[in-house]
């Protein structure tokens, strides 16, 4: 009896503390946490940017990352682009046929690919392949003390690890987007000519006549921004990785999700700006 009486206050306190969270306290803590996270990411990004655009540059490391981020992403980007281009052509044909506007398929495919889908699909694919990969690699280095060792050997992880990945992504993403644009348009061409009855020469001429330099430029500008976002999220989450397989796994997941959301969010912001300024 005494035991129960004695335990009640503890139980009640425990319920108050843990069982029913105060919603205002929860919202407050979450808001503070969000601002703290944004602040830390901003400081990290500023340090990476400073290391990336001032000497000393580790050219060998940049080249190695260019190969990893750019060359080894070609298959996944190419495959994604061809299917997106093909599906886009089918859907535009289906929608256009309701208004007798099937002839606009080449124009809308090239517009959609160059201004939007080429860059976005490349960004999303690389958020998965590259950002998570960078995060896992750097996270493993963090928890095995390799980053401490780097600093103890007078090498800055910002210059040796993060800046090369950031620069490589800034350079590789636009190149990959050019490839995605070409392959995406060819995906649309393939379906249109093989399944929808378009003439090959007419399709390609319509595509080339319609696309403008600005359409391609907007996609490339987006690609540079996506490259920065993807590399930064990978490096940031990897650098903050907690010990153990769970910590590294969580860092990889957070970087992939964070990079994907930021790719889509920055894409919308940039599209709005480009429309506003008439680009």
């Amino acid at each position, binding site marked *: 009896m005494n035991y129960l009486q004695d335990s009640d206050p503890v139980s009640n306190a425990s319920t108050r503390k843990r069982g029913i969270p105060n919603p205002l306290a929860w919202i407050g803590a979450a808001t503070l946490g969000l601002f703290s996270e944004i602040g830390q990411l901003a400081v990290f990004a500023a340090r990476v940017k400073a290391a990336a655009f001032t000497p000393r540059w580790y050219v060998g490391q940049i080249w190695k990352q260019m190969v990893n981020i750019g060359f080894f992403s070609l298959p996944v980007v190419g495959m994604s682009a061809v299917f997106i281009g093909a599906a886009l052509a089918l859907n535009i044909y289906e929608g256009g046929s309701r208004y007798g506007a099937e002839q606009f398929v080449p124009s809308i495919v090239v517009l959609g690919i160059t201004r939007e889908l080429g860059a976005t699909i490349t960004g999303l694919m690389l958020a998965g392949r590259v950002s998570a990969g960078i995060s896992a690699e750097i996270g493993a280095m963090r928890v095995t*003390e*390799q980053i*401490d*060792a*780097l600093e*103890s050997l*007078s*090498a800055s992880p910002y210059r*040796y690890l993060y800046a090369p990945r950031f620069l490589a992504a800034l350079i590789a993403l636009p190149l990959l987007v050019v490839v995605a644009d070409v392959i995406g348009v060819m995906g649309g061409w393939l379906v249109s000519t093989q399944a929808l009855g378009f003439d090959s020469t007419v399709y390609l001429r319509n595509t080339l006549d319609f696309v403008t330099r600005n359409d391609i430029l907007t996609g490339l500008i987006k690609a540079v921004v996506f490259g920065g976002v993807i590399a930064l999220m990978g490096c940031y989450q990897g650098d903050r990785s907690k010990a153990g397989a769970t910590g590294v796994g969580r860092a990889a997941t957070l970087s992939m999700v964070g990079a994907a959301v930021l790719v889509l969010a920055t894409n919308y912001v940039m599209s709005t700006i480009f429309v506003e300024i008439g680009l």
Partner: protein
Amino acid sequence: MSTPILSLQNVEKRFGKNHVLRGVSLDVEPGQSLVVIGGSGSGKSVMLKNALGLMTPDSGNILFNGEDVTQSRGKSRARMRERVGMLFQSGALFDSLTVWENVAFRLINSGVVSRSKAKDHAIETLRKVRLGTEVADLYPAEISGGMQKRVSLARSIISKPDLIFFDEPTTGLDPITADAINDLIIEQVRGLGAAAVTITHDMSSARKVADEVAMLFEGKIIWRGKASEVDNSGNPYVDQFVHGRAEGPIQPAI
């Protein structure tokens, strides 16, 4: 009396509510081998990382050769680190680099030595830790744990530092390999005339490599004396620790 090569003065470090270092004060003389013993979670590694500048203390000062390096950054910190070597508990070899590139990392990174000369120097240093040329082009994952410790030792001594930190150098090794590592540490530290700070809870290693032993308990140095005195320190904490008894003033960390 000469200026200590390393001096920790009332160093404190907290992680949230966890008060890890509670005013650590410690001097290391040039050429001296000091071993810091203490149980798991006593703050040994944190103390070492503060001394090396991988962490910044919340309060207190760290002096290297009389110069206050507590808050130093950039070139000033880099100058200190050029004169300090560190063997990490896990070895901390870079996975993506070969053994010789790991050993010669500091030389390559400094940019003053060509890669071919750096490789020659690395192979010569590997020989000092009894590793042959055949391991030079292997990757860390391709060699055993004992060999990784030797490679890490080679990396820490290649630039002939004035002070070397050893973080649990024999952890995870069999007794024979551990003893070989201890011999190499003594040989290389004496050969260089460097000072050494070793943290360990391996008492056979401590007895072998130490000139002096200090014990860290609950974030403070509670005893310091000659290595020969450690078994008869008269301090109940040290006695319990060196004799590995569960009963005594120190509660087991379980």
